[in-house]
């Protein structure tokens, strides 16, 4: 039995009949994708709101007292955790992964649709448990998104009784949801591709999402292990992580535990997590650039290999987050070296993106603007990463705004720009209507320039030594008054950027009914999701017959071809010899 037979098998698709089975308890990957996306964006807006409040506090410390000093850490913690896990991870894998994998691979659905549905509902439970933390006595945990013990579970830290338990519980539930989804994504990519879709004919979006899922499946257990053990420390009185601490004058209740052990476990998850977010972004942006530059992606095979190399290397760099925890110098040397090595495949990708644009027929559509914006932002954030990867530079900078600027550029703004680009790109397929172009351009420019106005000054603040995590700076002598002006300017930019996201939300809702009808392939793209018989694709995606793939995903501007793109499912033409189109002699 060949692998194609599974996708083509004539099993009942359980066509949904009622509203509930169609849109709520749905097993259709497209509906689940939208459910994931809406939930992720919803909770992401909460985190965005929290960052606005934090910025108001920092920018105008004398005008606002929205956040009490003892709540500030709770805001930091929840903002970080929501953005990294509940927004970005869920949106890229649960949202885009769910929508794109079956459509781009030419499958009718995920291979385990029921499990896929359960995955979403379990994710929703994780989000609700997380939100519940806002309403329990003591509020959510204020331990920082890294949840380091011992302070995470000691009295004195906000939310040390209820908040931390709910956070750990929510993470554990999230991991269960992710594992169910992840098994689906990986198995679907391996087993349910349509005929002719070899691994190296898959679009890079699928490659990025696939590898990110593999990373997630192997890395999230580390978070689960640390969450379980910390819960036991907090509830059952064990001493896995907790050393003997005299807290609030009370005699120590624990002894001998190792906080460093937690840090190793956490970052063994935490660093791959960076790439769980980055790899789908890399993949998607490759497809956006190629489609809108009407040119094949430069170095396709190298791009695939780079994704695999980054995935493997991401498991051996975690301790670069722990330089300031103190470590054997040889250990630090090892991790600094691996950290710099991982920059090599990453740089290959950046070169290939730029070379894809070189001599391309660049259409500055809204998705393309976001994709190009991503290259700039990612290079900026990546370069400061080279600073911080070195132990001697990291140690003085680690507790400053330089780090805030670095990871927001590389892990916050960069992937979010790709998310926006991807939404502008695929919205026509998802809804059948185009998003408004003018609003899209306003959204892009204000977001792109606005984020630079936010994060560039933070690098300078960091180099001056302005500490991060502080609620207020008080009478700190080494911080000049101009730092506060910078802080105010940053806050004003942040307010602008946050407000512009409302334009985007309005566009999303308004275009749903008022947008220009898109047709089936508005960007004239080659990949399979644009070749569906219906737009939006119906349940089962492909009508009576599955597509058959004859070529790779990047046949743009092929010399001699009638159009400037050849869909993947178009049979070969005798008049265009293989290989000739890219200047390779047959």
């Amino acid at each position: 039995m060949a692998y194609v037979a599974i996708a083509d098998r004539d099993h009942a698709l359980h066509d949904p009949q009622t509203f509930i089975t169609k849109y709520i308890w749905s097993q259709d990957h497209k509906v689940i994708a939208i459910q994931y996306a809406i939930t992720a964006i919803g909770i992401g807006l909460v985190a965005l709101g929290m960052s606005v409040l934090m910025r108001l506090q920092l920018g105008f410390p004398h005008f606002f007292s929205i956040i009490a000093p003892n709540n500030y850490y709770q805001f930091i913690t929840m903002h970080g955790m929501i953005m990294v896990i509940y927004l970005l991870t869920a949106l890229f894998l649960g949202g885009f992964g769910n929508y794109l994998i079956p459509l781009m691979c030419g499958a009718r659905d995920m291979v385990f649709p029921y499990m896929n549905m359960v995955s979403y509902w379990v994710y929703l439970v994780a989000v609700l448990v997380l939100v519940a933390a806002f309403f329990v006595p003591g509020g959510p945990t204020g331990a920082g998104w890294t949840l380091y013990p011992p302070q995470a579970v000691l009295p004195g830290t906000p939310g040390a009784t209820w908040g931390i338990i709910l956070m750990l519980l929510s993470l554990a539930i999230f991991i269960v949801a992710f594992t169910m989804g992840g098994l689906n994504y990986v198995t679907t990519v391996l087993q349910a591709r349509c005929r002719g879709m070899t691994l190296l004919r898959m679009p890079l979006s699928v490659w990025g999402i696939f590898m990110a899922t593999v990373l997630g499946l192997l890395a999230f257990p580390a978070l689960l292990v640390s969450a379980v053990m910390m819960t036991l420390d907090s509830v059952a009185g064990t001493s896995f992580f907790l050393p003997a601490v005299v807290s609030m004058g009370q005699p120590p209740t624990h002894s001998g535990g190792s906080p460093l052990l937690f840090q190793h476990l956490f970052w063994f998850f935490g660093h791959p997590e960076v790439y769980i977010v980055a790899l789908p972004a890399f993949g998607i942006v490759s497809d956006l650039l190629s489609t809108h530059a009407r040119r094949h992606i430069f170095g396709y095979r190298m791009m695939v290999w780079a994704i695999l190399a980054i995935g493997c290397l991401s498991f051996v760099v975690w301790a670069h987050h722990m330089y300031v925890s103190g470590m054997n110098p040889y250990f630090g040397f090892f991790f600094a070296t691996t950290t710099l090595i991982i920059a090599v495949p990453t740089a290959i990708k950046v070169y290939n993106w730029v070379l894809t644009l070189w001599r391309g027929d660049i259409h500055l559509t809204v998705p393309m603007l976001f994709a190009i914006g991503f290259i700039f932002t990612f290079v900026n954030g990546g370069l400061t990463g080279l600073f911080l990867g070195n132990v001697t530079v990291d140690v003085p900078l680690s507790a400053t705004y330089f780090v805030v600027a670095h990871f927001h550029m590389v892990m916050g703004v960069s992937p979010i720009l790709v998310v926006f680009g991807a939404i502008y790109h695929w919205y026509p397929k998802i809804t059948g209507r185009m998003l408004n172009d003018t609003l899209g351009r306003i959204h892009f420019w204000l977001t792109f320039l606005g984020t630079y106005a936010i994060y560039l000054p933070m690098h300078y603040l960091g180099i001056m030594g302005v500490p991060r995590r502080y609620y207020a700076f008080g009478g700190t002598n080494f911080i000049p008054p101009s730092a506060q002006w910078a802080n105010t300017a940053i806050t004003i930019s942040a307010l602008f950027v946050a407000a512009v996201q409302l334009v985007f939300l309005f566009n999303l809702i308004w275009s749903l009914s008022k947008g220009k009808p898109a047709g089936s392939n508005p960007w004239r793209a080659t990949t399979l999701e644009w070749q569906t018989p219906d737009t939006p694709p119906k349940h089962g995606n492909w009508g009576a017959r599955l597509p058959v793939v004859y070529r790779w995903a990047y046949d743009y501007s092929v010399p001699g071809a009638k159009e400037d793109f050849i869909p993947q499912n178009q049979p070969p033409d005798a008049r265009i010899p293989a290989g000739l189109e890219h200047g390779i002699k047959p």
Partner: protein
Amino acid sequence: MSLAVAFGALLAGVVVWGLLARRLTAKPWETPGSPEDLAAGSAVSLPPAKIGLWILLAVITSLFGLFISAYWMRMEHAHGDWTPLAVPRLLWLNTALLILSSAGMQWARGAARRAQADRVRVALIAAGVLAWAFLAGQLVAWRQLSASGYFMANSPAIAFFYLLTGVHGLHLLGGLFVWGKTVVRMAQAGVELLDVALSVELCTVYWHYLLLVWLVLFALLLST
């Protein structure tokens, strides 16, 4: 933690290499052509549930690998508070039960291959009952330890004992859930052996895997 590094790199490497490497050297831009000439090299003839199970086993391996490296690191970082655990002797009996249970599963799988429906039923039920007996035995071992005054807060070794056996037991419970569904389906009238053969096979793989995990954990508890 070096364990975890080696393990992570090895696992990721093996998975990626084994599944993908021979197909990662094609030149897709050169080969627009009929899918038939490509299908031969890329066919994977396993049912998706089987692939799904193997991937799940990789995830569980990651989980236990990390628990075990946490165990090692906690032992090494201990500031004189690590007292080795006196492993309850009952665990030897439990281990024997789990081995028998796994053997029973293997028997069921063989019978399913030879299409002997009655033997599948007997072997499957025997394997499940033995697995339940193992779990009951583990609970008794827990009771014995706590009755002699040792519970989680006393010492890290004991805390790890409860944690590791508990997590392993939970995984076995998950397997028993699928086992229960399979037994119920076999009991229904008109169900062909063919319909449950895959479930029996997947249960067998999972059982052997959990036996392996248990043997590793047991060896770890005995040796430290």
